[in-house]
């Protein structure tokens, strides 16, 4: 009973907006026909031959969903040979997500971005997109992501709710979804038929206004540029900010610099709520200050924005780092101790950069996410220890 309280509290946060009624136990599986990350359309009938069907609502951007991703994959791997079909559905409307809500992700929740994530993480079960209308999520009564529904041979709902009882893999006590599937496979009654899903609320169509508000707020931030000399460059390289520091050297005349800049700003808006900072450094001649400022203002670059204080570009570059290449754009990610975690001469591969940032940010609210982005799937599951237990 003690563990019920936090669940109820989570629900108060997660379920407050959810007006759609929960699918009752025994209800038939609501039909769907949705586009998948694999480029095909998937419908309920496609899985008619499977003994059991698990429908998991999950998404890209949500840290809880990321922490459960490997567990969902494991569930699929462990039970696909025993007659379980699994379908993941992303119900989030990508336009409803503000950059500030993307602090734990490299991509948003559009179908194209699902494709990117599926390829990056090797997701091999169907991953479908419901974000345009969210009709399927409504029919299922999804309350939070991830939210799993297990249907029996007759496609009647036999379990719905959480996958297990703790977002931290090693702390899992009760394998709700596994228990339900095991029971169904052996003809036993499902021990617990319903739990309350917890995680991220579904990003609804009605929240699009929020994105606009945040954009308007971003626009209102004052944009300035400070002239930076050799000492400032040395300081910048040493990174005394205590944060993970992204530095981008650019120039107004540099094509790739100008075109990649909005992506870097978006990246900044995504992670600035965390232990992260972005500094832009224009290597333009000091005389170009008006053009540099106009460019930064037009793109609403919150800064700090620096510009080389003298025309002696090579001296300032050497002051930053004797190993710094002279050409632009040059982008690098510096740890609080001054280590270079990522660098790119020429245009940045923005996803590669975001993944380096995510892998470089220490875990704050969600233990295991740094490992997720460092590419160590196994350490995230915690299941290898858990699974063999009675």
């Amino acid at each position, binding site marked *: 009973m003690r563990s019920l309280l936090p669940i109820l509290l989570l629900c108060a946060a997660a379920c407050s907006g959810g007006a759609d009624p929960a699918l009752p136990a025994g209800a038939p599986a609501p039909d769907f026909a949705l586009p998948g990350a694999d480029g095909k359309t998937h419908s309920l009938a496609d899985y008619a031959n499977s003994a059991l069907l698990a429908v998991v609502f999950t998404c890209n951007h949500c840290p809880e969903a990321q922490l459960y991703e490997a567990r969902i994959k494991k569930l699929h791997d462990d039970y696909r040979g025993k007659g379980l079909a699994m379908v993941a559905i992303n119900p989030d409307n990508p336009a409803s997500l503000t950059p500030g809500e993307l602090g734990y992700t490299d991509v948003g929740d559009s179908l194209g971005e699902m494709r990117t994530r599926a390829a990056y993480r090797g997701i091999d079960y169907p991953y479908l997109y419901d974000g345009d209308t969210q009709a399927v999520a409504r029919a299922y009564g999804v309350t939070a992501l991830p939210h799993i529904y297990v249907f029996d041979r007759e496609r009647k709902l036999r379990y719905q709710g959480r996958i297990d009882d703790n977002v931290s893999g090693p702390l899992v006590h009760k394998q709700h979804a596994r228990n339900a599937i095991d029971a169904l496979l052996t003809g036993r009654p499902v021990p617990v038929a319903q739990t309350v899903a917890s995680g991220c609320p579904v990003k609804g169509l009605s929240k699009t206004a929020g994105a606009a508000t945040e954009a308007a707020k971003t626009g209102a931030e004052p944009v300035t540029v400070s002239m930076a000399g050799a000492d400032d460059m040395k300081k910048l390289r040493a990174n005394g900010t205590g944060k993970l520091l992204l530095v981008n050297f650019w120039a107004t005349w540099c094509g790739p610099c100008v075109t990649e800049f909005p992506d870097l700003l978006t990246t900044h808006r995504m992670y600035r709520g965390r232990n992260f900072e972005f500094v832009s450094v224009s290597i333009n001649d000091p005389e170009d200050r008006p053009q540099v400022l106009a460019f930064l203002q037009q793109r609403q670059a919150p800064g700090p924005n620096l510009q080389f204080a003298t025309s002696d570009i090579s001296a300032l570059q050497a002051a930053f780092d004797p190993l*710094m290449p002279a050409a632009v754009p040059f982008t690098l990610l510096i740890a609080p101790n001054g280590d270079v975690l990522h660098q790119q001469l020429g245009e940045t591969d923005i996803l590669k950069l975001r993944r380096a940032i995510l892998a470089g940010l220490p875990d704050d609210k969600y233990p295991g996410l740094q490992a997720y982005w460092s590419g160590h799937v196994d350490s995230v599951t915690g299941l290898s220890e858990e699974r063999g237990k009675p």
Partner: protein
Amino acid sequence: MSQRTRVPFRRPVSIAVCAVFVCATIALAWPQSHPPSREVKSGALWRDVSPKPRRGEGGPRAAHTNQLRKSFSAASQPASPAQGRGRGIQPNEHPILPIGAPVPDFSLPGIDGKMHKLSEYTRTKFLAVVFECNHCPMSQLYESRVDRLYREYRGKGVTFVAINPNNPKSIRLNEQGYTDVNDSLEEMKIRAKFRGREWPYLYDGETQAVSIKFGVVATPHIYIFDQDRKLAYQGRIDDNHREDLVKSHDARNALDALLAGRPVPVAQTGAFGCTTKWMSKASGVEEEWAKIQAEPVTLDLVGVDDLKKLRANGTGKVLLVHFWSTGCATCVSQFPDLETTFRMYRLRSFDFVTVSTDPPGDPAVLAFLKKQYASSPNKQFAGTDASAAQAAWGAKWKAGSPFTMVIAPDGSVLYQKEGKLDILEMRRAILANMPDTKAYFGQQAYWQSAVADKKRK
């Protein structure tokens, strides 16, 4: 030309394939670029936390809290997984040829239509290989300085060879804001003719194999080889792209030292300019075209007063205005080049407005614009009398012909043409008059002087 106009019409390859490729690249690159993150993973976060806390020890919630506390204390540590290793800036993906290394062999097509091999240059005392290209403003800016080096040193036993390392297919339209043409061999010929280049200019964009051997960082990047064809200097031409501020003539110093039999004072400097457009890197050309296709296409009716306002050019930008109609074959055939021009220059102080003189209400106009993905501001004259439009504009042209004008921010006419356009001539007129580079380093002068030279001839 043909190269550039073809690019936008290539079908985007499957995004899925692209994503898989990108991700595969990342997956391969990851262990090398972040080897120590393994230490983080083995981290204290999971291993020492018992999955089954006993009663009386706080239960799962307390354990979870402990764990969170641990992770928070981890957060106060330096974030770097490479902690203690002092990982600094790494060398480029294609390492620069080291000083003393023999000159890499090459056999490349030149603007003269011939193949040029390293073996052609055995007789000369010293060999300077300069990597340059068409599209990069920094390369353009250094072009005349390099040409002067060539003229001064050719009589002293130094041979100059220029090589373009870029593949034009890796260069997006929005990276071509400072150029009339892209970086293909055919376009190199056009540029060389326009700028009067006399010495070999070779194309390595097909495979980039030579550029990889040299480790070309940027355009321009100069490599000077001694009598034994060992690398004696590599890097920048001089220390400032603004010629009036140059203090150290690095390439010249190296040549002078070699000619005098002295050691080269500074053998290596950082090449400054536009980074090499490696084919191995995702260029975003397909993504750009997909984005262009998704841009909204609109058409607004305009009256006599609107046209007068447009002619006065209150935009503060260089304004290209093009009168056209769907029934005019020349208009239809040259329209894609004009839209391409818009996509090339629109990030600069430039705008493009099309004005259709078709009868108002003709659905063919918007249909054509949509087919062209013409996301430029498009207008249609609301009157039925095309001569009224001409009167409002203050110019006369043959009805049914296209009419094109480039207008300066102050309203003066920079270029105008009735009938078929020479698109390169028009682009050069635009580039020579872009106001935002005036205070800067002479890109405008590059185009102005060439335009002036042309006129003189």
